[in-house]
């Protein structure tokens, strides 16, 4: 079909992010930047100040009297359903009716002429509660025996016979690991703008990763068919999963107010309120039992992963599932039993966050490896290598999927060499012997991450390409741009199909009216799904143009090819726009849809069996750290990363995702600590108290390489691999390096069992614990 390209090739794998210039000049519009008409108004959400209880009385009188207040909306004013559960569980009220289940739960919306008036008035509303004791932590939830409440069905993965294999193992360990949550801290907070249209219809601009879901939720709340709701998003100032379901609330409330008032309504919570109202990464507590050989080879593993889900299910089902799917990481475990406990707590409903439970699961697996290594006084890397999945055998996961693309051993050995791991580890051990105050640590950890939504039906995407009769190309797809460079990647795929410069393709905002039933831009799937759909739309159009040219110029199709100097038809050279112009006059349809669904995946949750992932992404990192043993403060000295993106779609963007994901992961495991007081109030709800990494928290030296000559064995778009989430987990290397540094105070004689995040406080108290344990042993 004329796939042969000729002329000087344009490389599209090093194109700079298409919004770059606009963002740099301040020209790029985010929703809050859009100029409003004069009568537009502003909504502000009032929320619960207790974590658990019943609302006895609400007094709106002061707020009502405030000049400029236009409307007050409580659950009674919602025209349709009062539920935004993304999984149809009917467990997530938009506005609380009577019961409040977390500190921060929305109760009412004030609408006023200005945001300042609405916000000030929202603080004048007086609510009386009957307070009940909240369940704030995982331990409290687990201890509430008899009342143990799951927000969604737990999952059990089982292969082989754990009990038997455990019993037979010469060595055994029992342990647990506590893993903290994480706030997304997208720089642009949540925002929604609802514009009423004729006939009760509505258009919503929402900072969302999932416009179709926003559309669906708005329709449900307004009691309208989805076809009467239009949702659009040009770009987000970061998402990271925090705008997958959490945008619904703001969009829905803005829409209700807009319809009631017949005026445009914007809702943008203050940063503190955004952090209090919206869900975060799930904290986990995992307990495990592992049986292994003297050399560290694992025979049997049983682990229970309990997650703090908050007051509703949200996406906790698939998130805790994915946690279980990643406990194995790169390791073959013959007999295994994994269970999830998606626990109800009186906290905000936790949600998607880069990795979607995978990081927590993987950390559990890596902790098991680490603890085994300490118990047999071996370098954890040796234990890792002994347990790696095989190629032809030892390649079945706990969910019975056969791994066909395992390259973990190759990545580890290449990185071990290029980073000088062995030598540096020796040097560090001898440094630690001499150094009194500062101790160092080094660790190499690998990543294997399953790609595809485990909700199989999500693995679909659509794209629309219009070629206008002047030869310009407009591209729409169902994915959303949150900074990850999706539009740049998808445009470059289309530009290569037509052999036209990247700049000639215009990507417009994501619109539910153009591409229906889109999936969330999540699970790292953005370019896999939308890139493929766009490629198909482009190929359809290209095929039409070739067929037309063949007929028009009576040249066989095989003598027609698109090249970078134009379209060669026999020995006639036409520019792309000349060909398009001719085709238009001959009434060739110049608009096409593309559709893609990921093949070969299936998942039977009840049985815990299937092949939920289309392929796996791999990577590994070596990190070296220095730790001050008197304060627990630390420095990241160096990190070397080798990561697999298949054949890169865009080197700049892929490296950006790896670096950014890694640092975000470092934040999760080091300085980012969520703190709830005993009453269940979140006390870390602003950057003054919640500390994401700064420039000075990055490793002094950071080397990132893409694994070369590693096309995806699966026929993904241009044989690339997903890159959004996998690099996040490279940060586990930093966590384990800190652990090694801490353990040096007792000559590596015991595993520190560090909990996450490893704040200076956590590290210092861990060091003290290690010393105490050591002293106790001596006595």
């Amino acid at each position: 079909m004329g796939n042969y390209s000729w002329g000087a090739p344009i490389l599209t794998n090093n194109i700079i992010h298409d919004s770059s210039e606009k963002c740099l000049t301040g020209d790029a519009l985010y929703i809050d930047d859009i100029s409003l008409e004069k009568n537009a108004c502003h909504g502000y959400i009032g929320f619960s100040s207790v974590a658990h209880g019943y609302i006895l009385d609400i007094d709106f009188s002061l707020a009502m009297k405030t000049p400029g207040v236009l409307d007050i909306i409580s659950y009674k004013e919602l025209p349709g359903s009062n539920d935004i559960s993304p999984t149809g569980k009917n467990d997530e009220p938009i506005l609380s009716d009577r019961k409040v289940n977390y500190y921060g739960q929305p109760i009412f919306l004030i609408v006023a002429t200005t945001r300042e008036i609405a916000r000030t008035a929202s603080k004048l509303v007086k609510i009386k509660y009957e307070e009940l004791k909240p369940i704030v932590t995982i331990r409290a939830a687990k201890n509430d025996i008899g009342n143990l409440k799951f927000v969604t069905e737990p999952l059990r993965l089982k292969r082989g016979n754990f009990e038997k294999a455990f019993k037979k193992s010469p060595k055994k360990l029992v342990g647990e690991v506590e893993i903290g949550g994480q706030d997304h801290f997208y720089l642009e907070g949540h925002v929604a703008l609802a514009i009423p249209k004729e006939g009760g219809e509505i258009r919503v601009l929402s900072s969302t990763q999932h416009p179709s879901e926003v559309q669906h939720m708005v329709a449900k709340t307004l009691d309208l068919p989805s076809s009467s709701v239009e949702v659009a998003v040009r770009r987000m100032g970061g998402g990271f999963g925090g705008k997958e379901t959490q945008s619904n609330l703001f969009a829905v409330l803005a829409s209700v107010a807009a319809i009631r008032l017949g005026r445009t309504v914007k809702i943008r919570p203050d940063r503190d309120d955004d952090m209090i109202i919206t869900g975060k990464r799930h904290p986990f507590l995992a307990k495990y039992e592992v049986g292994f050989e003297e050399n560290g080879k694992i025979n049997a593993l049983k682990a229970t992963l309990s997650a703090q889900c908050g007051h509703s299910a949200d996406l906790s089902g698939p998130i805790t599932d994915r946690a279980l799917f990643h406990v194995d990481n790169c390791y073959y475990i013959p007999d295994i039993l994994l269970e999830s406990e998606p626990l109800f707590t009186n906290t905000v409903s936790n949600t998607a966050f880069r990795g979607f439970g995978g990081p927590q699961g993987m950390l559990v697996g890596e902790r098991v490896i680490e603890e085994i290594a300490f118990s047999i006084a071996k370098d954890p890397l040796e234990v890792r290598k002994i347990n790696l999945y095989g190629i032809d055998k030892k390649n079945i996961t706990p969910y019975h999927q056969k791994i066909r693309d395992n390259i973990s051993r190759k990545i580890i050995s290449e990185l071990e060499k290029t980073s000088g791991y062995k030598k540096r580890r020796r040097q560090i051990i001898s440094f630690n012997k001499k150094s009194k105050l500062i101790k160092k640590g080094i660790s190499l950890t690998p990543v294997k991450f399953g790609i595809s939504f485990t909700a199989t039906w999500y693995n679909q995407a659509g794209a629309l390409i219009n070629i206008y009769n002047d030869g310009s190309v407009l591209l729409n797809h169902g994915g959303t741009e949150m900074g990850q460079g999706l539009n740049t990647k998808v445009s470059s795929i289309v530009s290569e199909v037509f052999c036209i410069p990247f700049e000639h393709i215009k990507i417009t905002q994501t619109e539910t009216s153009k591409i229906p039933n889109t999936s969330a831009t999540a699970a790292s799937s953005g370019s896999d799904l939308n890139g493929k759909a766009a490629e198909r739309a482009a190929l359809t159009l290209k095929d039409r143009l070739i067929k037309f040219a063949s007929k028009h110029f009576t040249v066989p199709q095989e003598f027609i090819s698109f090249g970078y100097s134009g379209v060669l038809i026999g020995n006639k050279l036409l520019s792309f726009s000349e060909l398009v112009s001719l085709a238009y006059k001959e009434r060739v349809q110049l608009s096409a849809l593309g559709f893609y669904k990921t093949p070969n995946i299936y998942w039977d949750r009840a049985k815990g069996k299937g092949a939920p992932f289309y392929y796996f992404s791999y990577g590994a990192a070596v990190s070296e750290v220095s730790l001050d043993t008197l304060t627990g403060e630390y420095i990241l000295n160096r990190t070397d990363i080798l990561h697999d993106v298949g054949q890169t779609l865009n080197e700049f963007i892929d490296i950006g995702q790896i670096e950014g994901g890694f640092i975000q992961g470092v934040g999760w495991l080091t300085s980012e600590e969520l703190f709830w007081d005993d009453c269940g109030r979140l006390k870390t709800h602003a950057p003054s108290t919640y500390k994401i990494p700064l420039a000075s928290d990055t490793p002094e030296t950071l080397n990132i390489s893409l694994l070369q000559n590693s096309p995806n064995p699966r026929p993904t778009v241009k044989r690339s691999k997903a890159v959004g989430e996998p690099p996040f987990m490279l940060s586990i290397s930093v966590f384990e390096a800190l652990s090694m540094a801490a353990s040096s105070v007792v000559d590596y004689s015991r595993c520190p069992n560090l909990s996450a995040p490893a704040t200076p406080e956590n590290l210092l108290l861990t060091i003290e614990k290690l010393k105490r344990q050591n002293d106790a042993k001596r006595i």
Partner: protein
Amino acid sequence: MKNQPIKFYLNNQYVNYAPEKEYISVLDYLRLNEELTGTKEGCGEGDCGACTVLLGSLQKTPSGFWLKYESINSCIRFLPSIHACHLVSIEHLSKKGELLHPIQEEMKNANGVQCGFCTPGIVMSIYNLFLNNDFTDRKKVEESLQGNLCRCTGYGPIINAAKNVFEKYKRIKDELYISNKKIKEKLIAIREKEPFPYSVPKDLKAFKSFIRKNKNNTIISGATDVGLWINKELQRPKNPVFISHVDELKIIKMSKNFITVGSSVTYTKLLESLKPFYPELTEYLKRIGGEQIRNMGTIGGNIANASPIGDMLPPLIALKSEIKISNAESQIRNIQMEDFFIKYKVKDLKNNEFILSVKIPKPTKGLVFSNYKVSKRRDEDISSVCASFYFIINRGYIIEARLVFGGMAEVPKRAKHTENFLLGKPWTEDSFADSAKKIEEDFQPISDARASQEYRVLVAKNLLKKVFLQKSKACRGLMRHGKLLVGRTNFD
């Protein structure tokens, strides 16, 4: 009277604006009044840097006025405080459809942009770094970005971009450079020839007169804390008076034995003036806020705010600093800084009084002076514990000890039991190890989101061990880019 217009320049354009409200932030003015939406709101508390703009203000020097541009957080800065200043937002760097500014160009080429929301603020911070420094290195770039959060890139590309700007350009002949003189003249004209808004006294006399007339007043200097009362607690403090034009409060005077700094001296300027005498304080001072906060926040504000975690307070108390206080009637009194703080956020300062200056003694013979700040994140964080240690050593014995801690009590406080224990003891590891036990007699700190009581006590004890260990060169402490992080001692 109250609605007298505020006059300033915005991106080279003259603005004459009489706000309807006492508190309108510079950010809201830009975004809502001018619809200049390139400057973003990320947090509304001066912690994320998305709102960073440059503020050009006239600096009085013996040879006349100098127009200095510094980065500030526009979200916690209020409009009256920029009277007679030049406000520069991202839109001023390059005109639509024209070439990018070199800083923007380097950011683009280094792939420094992902979601783009932090980007304008980052560009302005790099601009601030470039305008105020002749050279840079990785450490300096990191310092200059302490007040800017980016959640996408991991910072590497941004750091590269900043370094590239310095490598390629010695001077950038942009709009700011070209019109410097012109704008300076215009600002001088506003300052010298036109009436000041009521809430912006033009000098000390006017300031005193304001206080006389408005007993219940709110003195606002850098607004780095007041900004939060307004943005977060939705307070509207009565009778604000913005004192950034009162030059008498910006003096830095060196005498034989003292350094005297006016209460309106910013951290940035304080850092420069203390550096020759207390180099060990430099690294510590650079961990207060981010660059923008250091450009705004003042020493008087830090003292008058009387927070238990005001980072400047322990070193100033340790150094035996003295506060000079005036009232509206010009009656002066002096008070030792350690006596100024009474209990949580309560201080020895009356309604009609204000802080004139702080007198800091210069180093004396035998002084060992060391400062520590321990926080969850190293930079731009609030202390879990901060400590300032002042020892006079004579023939190997401690003859004077002043140990001042922040974050350990409701006010910054000396550890008097521990001090007494150390007095007369030899400068040995044992003395310090033993003294640590006394910390619990001095402090019973609280547990909160920043740190637990257990950690605070442990760290306070360990810092005593650390100050001794660091005396021996073998235990230097954490290094970054070849330089020791805070906790330098005179022995280095």
